[in-house]
């Protein structure tokens, strides 16, 4: 009676499983066997037949720019037919999207440099063993090359050198001496009736207080777990200083980037801690008062302490599972070469990592880039493992909320450090 039922199930399962079996078989993706000698690019062109299909992930804001650059890339190799798709994937979350399924990720993708350790350990990045169109490690700023290097091996191509934060302010409210210290700024803001915004509850920004006060956070030798000494003597003073700032009423935790921009647009924040990506929007909001500089100092035990920051870079990587690794490599090089970086600065205002491009007058005279450069003296490269973010963000939001449960600050710091240093599962 039930046999037809079973029979149909069975045959359908088999068809299904055959499909599953077949689709798992195509693993070899080598094309051509050209040796390293001679002109590698010419060999690649010669060994390529048919259309080269590539996918590129760039942030939504960079879509148009990336498409323009790709047209330039295609023009470089007129004899090869390309089918290059550009899709949107934010640089700040590229890691999550790539790691969901590396084999389905783009051949070439942009990401922020703090993700490189995890991407490399997951085996998602193709190592950069040779340069073909320009010397990647010599033509880019040393810091950016270092940011693209893991265990002494280069894994990505530096694209921008501006992924850090500094102070934007309205020069109609603050004088140049005001912006030296948060105390002076808060006095000026109070007089103006406006506020100063910073994402204190965001781990990326919270770092600036502790590092400024001389506390350390870094990667352990295994490359994924963190070491952190915020809970050592004096740490509670920093925590108290943050609470004092945030409960003052003039220095406000903006929560996230959207909070920053909402406050700026609505005229609530006359100064904010933010980065290059908001430069154009903030300039539009502050108008002729638009100005930027390094971060101010804050008061710790009656002394002025300079706030530190993370210095970050944006990189372009090639997928280790790309079926067109050769062309993906060339495209990644093209998207990060000097000319492309100049174009990127001109259209999007993003600071180049290329030495020549960043030395140009146009770049040097940009106020936001100048502020970033001034902050660079106090900035440290962003080398932290994935377990830093959630505990530090929690600490930040507790401190920003004025420590509502009145937990002992030492306990808070101890628990936070325990979370930051926890082993990676």
């Amino acid at each position, binding site marked *: 009676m039930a046999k037809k039922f079973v029979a149909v199930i069975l045959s359908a399962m088999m068809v299904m499983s055959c499909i599953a079996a077949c689709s798992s078989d195509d693993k*070899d993706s080598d094309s051509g066997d*050209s040796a390293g000698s001679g002109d590698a690019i010419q060999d*690649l062109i010669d060994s390529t037949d048919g259309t080269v299909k590539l996918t590129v992930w760039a942030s939504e804001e960079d879509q148009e720019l990336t498409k323009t650059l790709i047209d330039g890339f295609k023009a470089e190799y007129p004899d090869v037919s390309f089918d290059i798709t550009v899709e949107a994937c934010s640089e700040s979350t590229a890691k*999550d999207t790539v790691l969901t399924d590396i084999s389905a990720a783009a051949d070439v993708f942009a990401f922020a440099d703090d993700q490189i350790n995890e991407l490399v350990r997951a085996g998602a990045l193709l190592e950069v063993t040779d340069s073909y169109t320009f010397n990647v490690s010599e033509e880019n700023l040393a810091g950016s090359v270092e940011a693209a290097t893991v265990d002494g091996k280069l894994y990505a191509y530096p694209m921008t050198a501006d992924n850090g934060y500094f102070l934007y302010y309205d020069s109609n409210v603050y004088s140049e001496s005001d912006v030296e210290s948060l105390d002076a700024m808060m006095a000026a803001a109070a007089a103006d009736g406006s506020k100063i915004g910073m994402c204190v509850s965001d781990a990326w920004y919270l770092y600036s207080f502790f590092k400024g006060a001389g506390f350390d956070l870094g990667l352990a030798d295994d490359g994924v777990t963190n070491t952190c000494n915020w809970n050592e003597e004096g740490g509670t003073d920093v925590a108290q200083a943050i609470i004092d700032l945030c409960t003052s009423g003039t220095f406000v935790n903006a929560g996230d980037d959207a909070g920053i921009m909402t406050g700026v647009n609505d005229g609530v924040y006359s100064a904010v801690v933010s980065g290059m990506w908001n430069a154009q929007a903030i300039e539009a909001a502050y108008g002729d008062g638009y100005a930027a500089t390094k971060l101010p100092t804050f008061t710790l035990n009656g002394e002025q302490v300079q706030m530190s920051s993370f210095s970050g870079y944006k990189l372009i990587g090639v997928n280790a599972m790309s079926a067109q690794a050769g062309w993906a490599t060339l495209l990644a090089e093209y998207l990060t070469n000097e000319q492309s970086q100049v174009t990127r600065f001109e259209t999007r205002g993003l600071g180049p990592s290329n030495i020549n491009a960043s030395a140009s007058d146009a770049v040097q005279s940009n106020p936001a880039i100048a502020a970033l450069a001034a902050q660079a003296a106090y900035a440290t490269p962003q080398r932290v493992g994935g*377990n830093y973010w959630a505990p530090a963000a929690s600490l930040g939001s507790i401190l920003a*909320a004025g420590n509502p449960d009145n937990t002992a600050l030492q306990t808070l710091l101890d628990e936070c450090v325990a*979370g930051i240093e926890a082993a990676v599962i």
Partner: protein
Amino acid sequence: MTLKKTPNNTSRGHFGYFRDLIAAFKNGDKYVRLSSVAMGTGYIARKQVIKGILVFLVQILFILSMIFFAAPNFAKFGTLGTVEYAYEKVGLNTRINNYDNSFLILLNSIVAIFIIFVFILFWIHNMKAVYELQVRKEHGRPINNFKQDLRSLIEGNFHLTLLTLPTLGVILINILPILILIAIAFTNYGGLEHTPPTHLFTWTWRVKNASGEVVGKVWDNFSTFFSNKNSNFNYAFWRIAGWTLLWAFLATFTCFIGGILLAKLINSDGIKFRRVWRTLFIITIAVPQFVSLILVRNFFRDSGIFNTICSDIGLTKLLYNMHLIPTPDTIPFLTNPKWTKFMIVMINIWVGVPYQMLIATGVLMNIPQSQVESARLDGANNFQIFVHIIMPYFLVVQGPALITDFVRNINNFNVIYLLTQDIYQTHDLKMAAANAKEPDLLVTWLFRLTNENASYNIASVIGIIVFIACATFTLISFAIMMRGNKEEDYR
């Protein structure tokens, strides 16, 4: 037309199932016995040629799938693969080795096991069927030809026709994933270094430490939650499980009561334009949840419009003076743990009450008015009538729906995720270390673990626990509620 109403004869039970099979072997003739090796011979011998060929084809398909699909995967099933992904540079291009993909090995093996299981059922059934044919022939009873067999599919066997495709769908989308999920809970799949295709994963009992000794145990993933008292996962798990239950109770109960009260209010004497009022409330649930909830999330932001309004009318100051909020200028609606939990329940009322109101309106119409009238004559007031007559009636009628709602709320992903994602930061540092947040339900925590941490094995464990808990709860409560309740009685 054969209208055979087979009674649910449970006394035949499981023994009958195998007794028939044994009988088939004992008493079957050579064709029946041959059918156990070459399936279909039993049919062909009774002149059911087409059916016999079809069954035989299924058997060949099965054998082929075993050889070409199951065998290669089973060979690696014990280790889940040994060859790790690697590439070598050839000029500009890369040559990728013939690597093992642990996930595909696991997936294919489970599909293969499932096929074998189904095939065994099919084989047993086949044996019984050919034996029955033999018996029929011996007794001179008629044997269906192929046309009659087909015809039975729209008559006595119509349920097979109806259920086949939906069952296949359920197998693909529900059953296989659950089986695979259970298997994953016993592997070290997840994290950066055990995620295919670039890396391998293996069974927990094969996990080795740096010096190559086997250190894993079968229940390693489960003990993360239960035995290891100090781990952050253990800490977060119990806290989240507790809140999940509390939330499910609050969410179900508030919406249930709220819906009845609202329906009563709209239906009470003297209210004009009932339909209009009802429609006004329904509009809010007709907007897709991801739109309305994201909107509400931004409405209640720390630096949002509602905070501005509150501070303009002095509410913020008032709450601050009452020590209900820690900072003088913002009400942390969706950023403080206590406020967030409170707001989530309130917003859920906003989402859920109109639904419940709709249902309650329907149920209210069926309330036996005679009871209400006689209670009123006895001098009961409105409140007493509500508590003693209306509520019990609702509980009886809505009982099963309440259970389903409760379970649905345990897994209410949308409300929690959409209201807290990107905006809520946990204030509990031990939870933060387990990537959890106070208002998280087990499902949202699980989602975050897979999406942001790629901790697939840990997430599978949570999934299995939630599933078992929900299934047990439902089965028990339905069993209690449905005692002696036969659906046939209604007809």
